[in-house]
């Protein structure tokens, strides 16, 4: 590997604590250096946000309770499982089903185009093609508990995009293709290629040797460009130095990632095999979940957001006997036959989620618990009845016990149209994230 002497010493400083180098000390470095020691000792909760588009068949159709396939009848402990949630029954002790929630800020005439982006922000976005939306709770969490992992957060999807209705003449396309906003104008793209997702989490290369070779290449390149940028900076006026500072900050952020990555022991982690050909949907969605399991296990990130299908997805579910495309099917026209088909699709997603939970439950984490014990995973939709595109009652559940902050095995029913934001705020607090409010929140759901 090629490293000049000057730059070698710069990196040594970086690893040793990051002080006293000539370039401005930037925020990204500080947590990198300080938090490393803490990570092993005090596991912090993982947070996951699992977005299922197009609502669920529950007590939200003209048939009322007769067609309810989601909401348990029993409140409190030892609740019953309706067909959609039934696959999750083995994880009862780690489940909290929350009923009665609604999300008013998600309402608009653009029935699909703003639903994804408002799920985790509960804030109505600006009517513009250029994005301007509320910051989402996954990113709020990432800013607080995601800074000492190689990736502050991870955003995944299973499809590149759905049909045209995910865009809108008024709201554009910015709010329909992601559930994550780091800043009002910064939507986080959702990675849908398993290969790219893998490389983002674990680095490029198929074998540990290849990954280490790539990391070496990057280290040398970063040394070179850091030196070049510093030279360039000397030639520039004050206004332009800011640009170079941004560049150098990015250099340090990538360096930080590579160093953290290099320190992770992956020998005990089952890294998923990524096939060359794009897998079919069932294999792909499970692969994406396996990547999340591995990322959590290796402590590559603590925060994951995933769109389980694209908004306005045209994905057929032939693998569970439903050849219809998801979105057209979701316009069930209050027809029982169509609704039962949709139940099969939604139940399938519960099954995938249940299998994912089983893997998390099998991985020890901290003092005798599992990763699932230490996780807070929100699963649900930001739409209720996919035929009328309303946003109440929202199908919502939590998996995991948040390192003992969430009891589990309960069905909680809140008054109708309790803001979803109240739950999001509650989850942030349970994860140790200081937050005063989220979107239109009016308080916490202390019972959770």
């Amino acid at each position: 590997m090629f490293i000049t002497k000057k730059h070698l010493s710069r990196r040594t400083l970086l690893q040793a604590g990051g002080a006293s180098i000539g370039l401005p000390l930037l925020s990204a470095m500080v947590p990198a250096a300080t938090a490393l020691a803490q990570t092993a000792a005090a596991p912090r909760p993982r947070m996951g946000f699992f977005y299922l588009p197009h609502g669920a068949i529950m007590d939200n159709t003209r048939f009322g309770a007769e067609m309810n396939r989601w909401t348990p009848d029993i409140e409190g402990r030892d609740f019953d499982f309706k067909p959609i949630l039934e696959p999750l029954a083995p994880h009862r002790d780690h489940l909290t089903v929350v009923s009665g929630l609604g999300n008013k800020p998600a309402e608009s005439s653009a029935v699909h185009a703003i639903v994804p982006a408002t799920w985790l922000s509960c804030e109505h976005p600006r009517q513009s093609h250029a994005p301007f939306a509320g910051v989402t709770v996954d990113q709020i969490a990432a800013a607080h508990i995601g800074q000492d992992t190689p990736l502050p957060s991870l955003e995944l999807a299973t499809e590149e995009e759905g049909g045209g209705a995910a865009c809108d003449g008024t709201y554009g396309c910015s709010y329909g293709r992601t559930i994550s906003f780091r800043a009002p104008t910064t939507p986080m793209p959702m990675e849908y290629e398993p290969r790219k997702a893998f490389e983002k989490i674990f680095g490029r290369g198929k074998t540990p040797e290849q990954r280490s070779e790539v990391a070496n290449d990057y280290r040398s390149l970063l040394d070179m460009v850091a030196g070049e940028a510093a030279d360039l900076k000397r030639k520039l006026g004050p206004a332009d130095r800011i640009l170079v500072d941004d560049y150098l900050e990015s250099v340090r952020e990538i360096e930080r990632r590579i160093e953290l990555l290099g320190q992770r022991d992956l020998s005990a982690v089952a890294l998923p095999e990524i096939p060359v050909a794009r897998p079919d949907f069932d294999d792909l969605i499970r692969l994406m979940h396996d990547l999340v399991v591995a990322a959590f296990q290796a402590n590559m990130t603590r925060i994951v957001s995933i769109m389980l299908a694209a908004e306005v997805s045209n994905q057929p579910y032939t693998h569970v006997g439903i050849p219809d495309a998801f979105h057209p099917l979701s316009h069930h026209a209050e027809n029982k036959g169509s609704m039962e088909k949709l139940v099969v699709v939604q139940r399938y997603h519960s099954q995938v989620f249940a299998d994912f939970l089983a893997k998390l439950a099998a991985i020890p984490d901290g003092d005798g618990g599992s990763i699932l014990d230490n996780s807070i995973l929100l699963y649900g939709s930001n739409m209720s009845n996919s035929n009328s595109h309303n946003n109440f009652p929202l199908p919502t559940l939590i998996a995991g016990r948040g390192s003992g902050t969430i009891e589990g095995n309960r069905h909680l029913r809140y008054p109708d149209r309790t803001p979803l934001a109240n739950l999001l705020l509650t989850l942030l607090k349970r994860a140790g994230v200081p937050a005063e409010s989220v979107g239109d929140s009016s308080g916490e759901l202390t019972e959770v």
Partner: protein
Amino acid sequence: MTRFRRRVPKRSRVHPLRTAAAVVGCALLAACAQRDIPPEAALAAHWPILDGYCADCHNDTEYAAEFSFDAAEPADIAADPETWEKVVRKLRGDLMPPPGGPRPDAERVDAFVASLGDALDAAAAIRGPMPGHVSPHRLNRTEYARAIEDLFGFRIDAAALLPNDIASEGFDNIAEVLGVSPTHLDQYLAAARDISIRAVGEAVPELTRAYYRSERENRTMHVAGLPLGTRGGLAVGHYFPADGEYDISLNISSIPGAELRGYPYGWLEYRHRLVVTIDGIKVFEDFIGGEEDSRTLDQEQIQGVERIRDRFRNIRVSVKAGQRNVAASFIARSLAEGDYLLQSLTPGEGVPDVPRLYGLEIIGPYNATGIGESTVSRDRIFVCYPREQGAERPCAREIFANLATRAFRRPVDAADIDPLLGFYDAGRNDGDFEAGIQKGVMALLASTKFLYRAEPGDAPAGPDAASAYAVSDLELAWRLAFFIWSQGPDETLLELAEQGRLGDPDVLEAQAGRMLADRRSSSLVTNFAFQWLAVRRVEMIDPDPRLYPNFDEDLRSAFREEMALFLDSILREERSVLDLLTANHTFVNERLARHYGIDTVRGDRFRRVELADSRRFGLFGKASILMVTSYPDRTSPVLRGAWIMEHILATPPASVPAGVETDLTPAPGDIPRTVRERLARHRTEPSCNHCHGVIDPLGQALENFNVIGEWRTHERDNGLPIDSSGTLAGGMPVNDPEELRRALTAEPELFVQALAEKLMTYALGRGLEYYDMPSVRAIVADAAAAGYSFDSLVLGIARSEAFRMRAVPEPDAEDALQARGD
């Protein structure tokens, strides 16, 4: 006087040619400041306009827009040009006084504006050059891809390799916002590594998958790049990394994105012949559909479809390394069989009519056998090849010197080459000569010297130094090349720069002329003009299929093609740019001709036609423009009016001010029946009318064009006649596209100045400021003498001080820090 806080809508209506010429002549001759009548004195005669029509709101008490004329004097102009340029814009654009109130005669306003411009230009001439500040440019995605193609002779999929760029001021090359986030840097490093491996080549590359989509491509027309006599499909440039076998899979359906989409599979009813070619040579042919496939489908349902599809998956072909054109398409049947015009019968769904190729996957290489013959990129890299170990390092040096000169767009020295050799040595130690070269090429592509255009010459120092200085010839060459070609300079330009001759105005002009004549200047159409007119959005709008069942991807691509050809025919043929608004020709194929009601065109080839229907003349009659200014389900005079103000007149309307009621929801039982009725509220509420009185009539004149640009005389839903009449803010009645066109070209410098401003923004890579306006007025006046040709605007910009000069940065506290050294 206080300055405006809000960003004020730019641009304008305005002054007759003779006054414009006088104003600009003045800017050119600094002497005009010493004319008999000082500009302030001339202005004083117009001052009553401010008192009579402006000071009612803009006074110390009302303080509208935080702006007062109470203490304003003609002598203020030189001291506060920023504010007065805004006044000029407001008046030129008829934005003020607001519609609905009393306004002075147009002649009086014109004379006042002319006089103001005169004074501003005179003040600028005395003040001296203010070329403004441009940050170091990072190559954007388009420029990066062009640079790679220039270096190695292959195309990269920039969208897949590199992050998207943020646009500002309507363009994606604005230096200030081309930042580098960690995601960017990560992807640049990855791209540098991937591209270097591809360029040098590997004997046994890893198995990789490439997937190409044709979601936006057509299915019934011939596609450029595919063999004649074929229909639909896609042609892609694919780089095969080594000699070997590759699997090609085709995704076939009739609806994009839903390959297994339910029943009926009507599109399998007839036999369609499908071919795959590589560099024009047929490598695969088979039929899909017809009796046997229909039977399979009947009997086996979904599984049957899978079996049919399997015939088009994993087609194993042997290919030699290099960039190749891979094409897959259907053989066109005669039109009598009806591939055409099978329109959707089910609202929103459409009837699957013919099979369509929407994706092509290439996986390989299997059984790779190295790189037999050379590739273009290897030829370009290996300008020498060592026969013995001792020759290796000198050869590596030669290779990097050659590549770096082109990649860094300038002569290079040891300081540029040595770091690359460092990478070479590391790679050579771990592997062989070529491994070393690959590492060096990787470093070259990751270098900020490649990624940035940032080589400011040393500014003259000292307290007495001027506030601006001429950029080096080298930087001038870069600016010129990126402006006209969207890529780095060629050898001729670099040579002239090296000889220090490019700064010579005649040489500069001759070079600009040469570059405009070169085909690379087509980026001014595809890159500049498409962004200027916002027509790239044509890809992003999906008209409501229930309302516009005739719209399909064929039509979308025809819209795009027409616009590209039309713009090219005016911008690159030395015609007056006013022809953009008025030209009586366009380019159509049969599909688009039918859409426009022209029934004499046959076939898929685009050709130039003279338009008999004058409503279709110029940009306002082009479907792409009409569609990007509509909602998917209805037209919007507001969007169209705002588009005209922003893109044609360069005076974008202000956004809705805080506190203004914007809820137009009608009372129950009072549902408006037409778009016009919906907008009636804009007229009755003064707070709306201030802006919408300017915006709406412009768009209303185009109301006879529907969302996809078809002419209509009645509303679709209720059969009510379309009323496109209106009165522009300046008082001119306009009732249809022709009158709108006449109104907007009555004072040609309005539009020309708007285009000049947009072009200058793009050329400089920064938003324009008040101190640029004297230059803009001069460029427009010079262009008038050249018949308003596009070339004359390009030349005018290339000669402008903002283009040729750079402001000396203002020192600040950081300089002191910097002086201490790192």
